[in-house]
Every structure is written in C-alpha cells, then in structure tokens.
C-alpha cells in the first residue's frame, strides 16, 4: 500500500477485500494520524486500544468470510452517541465523567457491520453551536490553513467529526444534525456529510438536543463513502418511536451518475443580502454542472425561508430546555452540593452547563412558560408546518433542490461572532430543511478566494436519500475538488 490514509472508505473496503490491507494496518495508520494531529483537538476521547481490538476481531471475521458493510473501517464517533464503557460527554462539564452502560442504536449498527471505533469526537456542547467553540473540551481547529496563519473554525456542532475526516484522523465519522450540524461543518472542512430524513436513523442512545429535529448522519471523503456508511447506520428502531419503519435501500447502488431529465429546484430566497459573490458564483457553477449532465434547472420559491431561523430558535431551545432537565446531579454526571435540593440543582446546572447551553435553556424555558406558549411556541409550530408544506409543494415540481451550504467560508476562531444571533445566521441555509425533516447533503465544490472550501447543499424529498446522493455524485465528479 502506498498510503493507507489516502484510501476512501470504498477504496479501503476493496483493498481489504483483496487482501492488500488488514483492518489492523488501516486502524494503526489512523491511530498514528490521530496522534500526529492531536493539536486539532478533534477528539475528546481517543480509544486506540479498543480500536485495535475491534480491528483484530474484524480481520478474524473477514478471514472467516464474514464481512459487514463497514467491515474493518476505522471511524470516529461524535461524542453525543452513547458508547457502552466509553466515556460520553456531549462536550459538557455536566457529563464529563459519564460512562454509559448501554450502546446507542446507531453505533451498535455500525459495530455490528464491522466498523472500528477510533474515539469520540469533539462537538459543541450538547450540539449547540456552529463553530465547535462551545465545547467544554476546547476549540477544534479546522485542518484547512490560510496564508494569514490564523486558525479557522471547523463549524459545528459536529466540528470534531468534520475536522477528523478532513485531517485523515478518521476514515469516516458519525454526526448529528439538528439545524445544520453535519452540513455546515462538512462545508467548512471540505468534506462530504449527509443528514438523512428525520426518522431514518434511530435517536436511541444519542444525547438529545431537540428531539423533533435531531437526526444522526455521517461524514466521509466522498459521496460514495456517505452512501456506504449511511446504509450501515440507518434503519427502523422499535426503541425510537419517531423512527420510521421503511426499508433501507442500497444507497451505493443508487449512485448511477445519471440525472438526465431530473428537475433541480433553485430557491430564489436563498440569494440573501450580503452573500459573497464567490458563493453566488459557486452556486451558479453547480447549476451549470447539473444542466450539463442533463438535468433541468427550475426556479422555485420558498417564501418562508427567512422565517426558518426564528422558528428554529423557538422550537429547538424549547425542546432543549426540557431535554436537558435530566442533568440534575442525581443519577449521573456532575453534582455540586447545595444547601437543599433546589440549590444543588441550580449549582450543578449553573456550573455544569456552558454559556450557550444556558442561553438556550433560558430561551426555551421562557417561550414555554405561562402566557408565552401560544405566542412563541405554538406560533413556531404553525410556521414550521407552513415551511414543511412549502417544501412539499415545491417537490411536486422538482426532484431535488440545490443551494449553497453556508453564506460564507470558515471564519477564524478569533473572529467568530460573539453575538449569538450573528452566530445563528450561519445556519440560514441548513435550518429550513431541518425544520421540514428533509434529507440534505453538503459536498465541497470549490475554494474561496482565501483558499478555503465552499460547500453546495443538495436537498431531497423525504426518504429519497438515494436521489440526493446521486445528484451530489454528479456535482462531485464535475467539481473535482482537491481534498487535503
């Protein structure tokens, strides 16, 4: 092997199938790279011993003719997925000593398909953020460098997962997406990430942020890598009432590269004020690539697009305020003693949660409180329904939608917006699809003037992840993006 780290997931599977590479060799290469890139802080917990043990077991299975979809592939797991016996923190002080005694459904699916766990990747605390800077365990550094020498944010919340794939300290990683937490960091780090339809992957064992929005997904080098890994993760789970009983297709087989006659919608409302020309240009380039491959570009309108963020910032904090009530210092995690029970709660939570998490709990508590419920929460649920209906109407005319993933390239860690609302605007293009539960993928399609990756987002109909992947594969081929 020239360099095991250069292989894509698909390539590594094929090399192992041919006997050119063992999982132990592959895993060791990634363990070494994990050590070499430690300064990026992509991992909260590294588990090299577990990785090698799993790799050995995988090689033994392969030798015995048993191979799963992810057989022998070393992956990073976002530290929001509970892993049995391995500390799971949600990047929060309140859970920094929590060792689950159970395994999340998604990681369990991955492991039973042969995946090897390298460690737990960094994220924004409780997945709340767009820069990975709210992590209790420190900033993650985007592996992409610019001439100014300043460190860039990897995006968030799955910043560690995205940075690890870009820096080759994992071949692929899991993520979760609530308002863009897979797509935005994928765009910032120049890799490919997919958030499937809400209900496609089980949320059981994933530390909850906003239950009606949270959806596990994955990061990889290529569209094909996403297709392989998503298939291994997805599936109905009777333990998650919101997971949907629907067969998971072989996504990889759905990538044909043929999009002749497909109608691709271009929503005019995504041309926001102040959008950099280079993003506008990339978007146009994407349309041209698709048209050149035989697709029909259709102008569409999603008038409520600018109402998506305000809707999201009511619904997500409201659910979070309730979901995070269980972190009370009684059954697990941090406890700070107080004079009585309420004091113990307030001290534990006051010390255990970071500023952004507290802000969101406060907002959520406020909008659900007596007298405000209808004006805020119910109104947001009504608008959310309207946003969903808008998408479903549009999907009567088009097969998929193409937009930029983010309104800018990765900002520097030092210049990250300190004002929460400005930070929230990062998710302007990703949040609408989250509210509608739609599948979405971001792939790197070009570079900014500073040499930073820029992403394009493909959105699909509910449960049409295959279509999304196929359209993305056409863009990927045309873009010829140079990965790190």
């Amino acid at each position, binding site marked *: 092997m020239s360099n095991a780290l250069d292989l894509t997931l698909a390539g590594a599977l094929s090399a192992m199938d041919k006997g050119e590479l063992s999982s132990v060799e592959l895993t060791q290469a990634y363990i070494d790279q994990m050590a070499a890139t430690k300064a990026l802080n992509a991992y909260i917990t590294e588990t090299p011993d577990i990785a090698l043990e799993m790799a050995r077991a995988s090689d033994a299975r392969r030798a015995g003719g048993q191979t799963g979809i992810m057989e022998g592939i070393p992956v990073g797991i976002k530290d929001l*997925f509970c892993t049995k016996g391995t500390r799971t923190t949600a990047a929060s002080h309140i859970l920094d000593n929590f060792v689950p005694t159970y395994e999340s459904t998604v990681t369990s699916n991955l492991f039973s398909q042969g995946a090897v766990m390298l460690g737990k990747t960094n994220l924004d605390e409780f997945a709340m953020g767009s820069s990975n800077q709210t992590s209790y365990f420190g900033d993650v550094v985007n592996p992409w460098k610019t001439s100014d020498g300043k460190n860039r944010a990897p995006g968030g919340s799955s910043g560690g997962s995205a940075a690890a794939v870009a820096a080759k300290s994992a071949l692929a990683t899991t993520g979760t997406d609530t308002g863009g937490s897979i797509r935005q960091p994928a765009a910032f780090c120049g890799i490919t990430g997919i958030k499937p339809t809400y209900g496609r992957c089980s*949320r059981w064992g994933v530390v909850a942020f*906003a*239950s009606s929005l949270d959806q596990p997904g994955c990061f990889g080098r290529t569209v094909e890598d996403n297709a392989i890994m998503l298939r291994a993760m997805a599936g109905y789970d009777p333990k998650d*009432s919101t997971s949907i009983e629907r067969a998971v297709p072989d996504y990889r087989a759905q990538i044909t590269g043929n999009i002749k006659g497909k109608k691709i919608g271009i929503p005019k409302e995504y041309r926001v004020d102040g959008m950099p020309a280079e993003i506008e240009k990339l978007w146009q380039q994407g349309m041209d690539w698709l048209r050149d491959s035989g697709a029909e570009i259709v102008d569409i309108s999603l008038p409520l697009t600018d109402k998506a963020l305000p809707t999201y910032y009511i619904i997500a904090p409201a659910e979070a305020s309730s979901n995070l009530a*269980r972190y009370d210092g009684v059954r*697990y995690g941090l406890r700070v003693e107080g004079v009585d029970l*309420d004091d113990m709660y307030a001290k534990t939570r006051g010390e255990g949660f970071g500023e952004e998490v507290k802000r969101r709990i406060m907002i959520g508590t406020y909008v659900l409180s007596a007298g405000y419920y209808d004006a805020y929460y119910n109104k947001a649920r009504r608008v959310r329904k309207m946003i969903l209906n808008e998408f479903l109407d549009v999907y009567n005319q088009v097969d998929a939608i193409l937009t930029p993933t983010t309104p800018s390239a990765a900002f520097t860690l030092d210049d990250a917006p300190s004002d929460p609302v400005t930070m929230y605007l990062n998710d302007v293009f990703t949040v609408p699809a989250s509210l509608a539960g739609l599948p979405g993928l971001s792939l790197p399609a070009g570079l900014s003037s500073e040499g930073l990756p820029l992403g394009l987002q493909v959105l699909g109909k509910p449960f049409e992840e295959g279509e999304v992947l196929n359209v993305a594969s056409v863009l990927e081929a045309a873009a010829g993006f140079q990965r790190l």
Partner: protein
Amino acid sequence: MSYTVKGNTGEWEVVIGLEVHAQVISNAKLFSGSATDFGAEPNSQVSFVDSAQPGMLPVVNKECLRQAIRTGLGLSAEINRYSVFDRKNYFYADLPQGYQISQLYHPIVGEGQIEIDLEDGSSRTIGIERLHLEQDAGKSIHDLDPKRSFIDLNRCGVALMEIVSRPDLRSPEEAGAYLRKLRTIFRYLGTCDGNMEEGSMRADVNVSVRKPGAEFGTRTETKNVNSIRFVMQAIESEALRQVKLVESGGEVVQETRLWDAGKGHTRPMRSKEFAHDYRYFPCPDLLPVNLPQSFVDEIKAEMPELPDKKKHRFMDDYGLPAYDAGVLVAERETADFYEAVAKAAGNAKLAANWTMGDFFGALNKADIKLADSPVKAEQLGGLIKLIADDTISGRIAKEVFEIMWETGKDAEAIVEEKGLKQITDTGAIEGIIDQIIADNPAQVEKVKTNEKLLGWFVGQTMKASGGKANPGVVNKLLKDKLGL
C-alpha cells in the same frame, strides 16, 4: 338532608372535586419494558428509560391504552381515538426526566359520568371531566438518613390514569361513595386493583366552601390522600378550616396542601410548589396516538356487565331492594357468587338474605376471602333450597350451615345424616301437642285469657320435637286445640 358546615354566620355548602390517580394494571410500564410489581428491591425494576439516562426514549405500551379505554367505557365516557402525550416540566428528586409525560391538551378519554350510591338508598350522578394517562413518579424516602433523602425509581414510569371529576360532590359521604364506586368499576374491569394502602389509588382533593347558591369559593388542593376515610376526613377538616378562616375575615388562598393523618388536618406544602409553571408541550419523542375504531370496538365487545347495570338487573329480576343490590354488586366476585347461590337455591330473595347475612358474617368472623370460603356458592344454594322447600326450618338451617362451614359437606348430606328433616306430618305433631296440653292444665287455663302464652306452647312443642317440627304447622294445630 344535604350536608353543610355550620359557621357563626350560618350554613356553608362544601364543593368537592376529586382527581384520582389510579395505577393501571399492566405487566410493564407505560413507556418502558420494566416490571410494575409492588414491593420489589430498590431500583430493581428500573430501565435506562425510567432512570432518564441520556439518549433514552419512550415507547407507548399498548395495554395501558386499552386499560384507559376500558375504564373510560366504564365511566360512560367519550373515547378519543386521537390523543397526544405532553411533557409537564418540573424538577423533583423522584422525577428523573425533569418532566412527567402526561396528556393535557388531548386526553385519551373525555367527558363521562358515574352514579354514586348513598346510604339512604338514593343515587346521584357525578360528572367526569376527563381521564388521561401519565407516568407515575418514583418514591422519595425521607426517614432513613438525617441529611439525605433516598430515591427508589421502581414506581417511576408505571402507568397512571388520572380521573378528574366535575366539582359535583357536596359532602364527605358523597366523596367516599364516589371513590368506592370508582374502585368497584376498576375492579370489575381489571384496570386498577384499587388498593389504596399500597398507593395504587390516590386522590387529590379539591375543596371550597360557599353560602348555598353563591358563586364557587377559592379552592385548595390536598394532594395524595391515600384512603377513603382520610379523603372524607380531609374534606371535613379543610371545609371547617376554610369556613373559620372566611368568617374571621380571612381569605382562602389557592394552594396545595398535604393531609396530616396523625394530626387529622391539612397543612400547606412547604416546598416551593407555588413557583411551578409546568410549561406543558407535546412530547417530541412521541408521535400522536391514533387508534383505529376497531381497537375501541374490540374492547367494547369484551366489556363485562358493569356494576350499575348489574344492580338494576338484580333489582328488576330478583326483586332485591336497592341497598341489597348495591351491596351485592360492589365486588364483581360477590355478585357472581350471589348469582350462583340464587341459581342453585331457586329463591333469589332468600339467597340474598343468606349471602349477605350468615355467609358474609362467617367470612368476616373467619377473616378470609370469598375465594377461600369452605362453603361454595352451589353448596350455599343447596342449603337455601332445603329451606325454601320446607325440608328444614331456618333455625335448623343455621345449625346445618355451621356444620357445612366446618366440614365442607353438602347441606343435604348433613340433614340426612343427622336426621334433621322437618316434621310436617300433622299426626306426629298432634301427638306431641296433646301430651303437652294434658301435662299442663294450669297453662291451658291461662292461655285462654292471655294469648301471649301461645309462644310458651310453641316452644315446648318445638323442644319436644327436637326442633324438627314445622313451626307453621305447630302454630296452626296449637290454635285449633286451644280454641284460640
């Protein structure tokens, strides 16, 4: 007739509404697969879901929905095929999630009514506002440690039905009758064991007072009262407290109170209950429940005859007075027993008297349950049959019953064995009477002026016949021979 509290300014009417929490009979909990048995080792019936570990999700237990619908049908209530589970948010040590999953906006059962039976034989209809399903909390134990409370989550997550009455009750007696009737309905349907000592049925008691015909007064809610007697006492003492308070120029404060059984009065809760703002919102981890009509129809088809209907049938078909019918239908087992007795006896009225009299008396005296009775329904019926057809007298029957109770033998066999058959042969009785008249000339003279002495002759005759002479025949013959 109606109940009032006498104050210095006159009579006060008491207005009572009850919220009954009834533990649903099911094998597993409402949202998890943990067992529901009473009295298990601490935290041994607790799953990751019940202890609200990170990432855990609820899944609805079908049987709990059935039980709620069964009960709803038993309350002649409207069944809502569409219902939604909401989160009720508050912090408490035995509430691990930081919220209780309940049903505020769309309960599974709507308006209904039940008939309560009062001591004077009259009945009243009490309105039911709703019945909804919710999770029980865990148990806090305060007396094992001077500085700490201990938490056992075994009960946490067990399904409860909360049944909310209209403020239709007007006296402690009516409240008691309401609770007894609810318990009867639960037990007929097998939806709750109604065992208040074990906490499987508890009541929140809403009490207010007003001058007759005036507007409702401000109510207080006394929480978690765990016996019918305590509910009645709490109403009495709380009503009296409110009357005294108002008459001395004070005002009733809407508050939550606790029943102090030792002191026999209610007191305000010391915890910060007043600060609650439950921030109800639909639980985003659960989808709405939408049951097909067939789900309800199947339950309807299996419904047993309900106590009120049975009571009226007993009155109509067996000619029982309302009170007797009410006593017999109070437990389904008793009603079934009585019907078996009546069938075997061929005389329903006599069967009722014997079942409620000698038989219940013997059960009470021996302190055993109906199911453990040494005398079975058919045997008791057999005994009564012998009375009804004049084979034995009522007095002899009591002796026979005692032997049956001790030996478990059939009445007929005992009567045969002991030669207890009644003498109805006029000739044999005449012989005895003639002898008594001949032996007691002085008494014969006296009875002619004092007819009350006839009893003495009856007694002598019965004694001489060993109790076997038919009392009717004896009376008639004596009167003839004494010329009365």
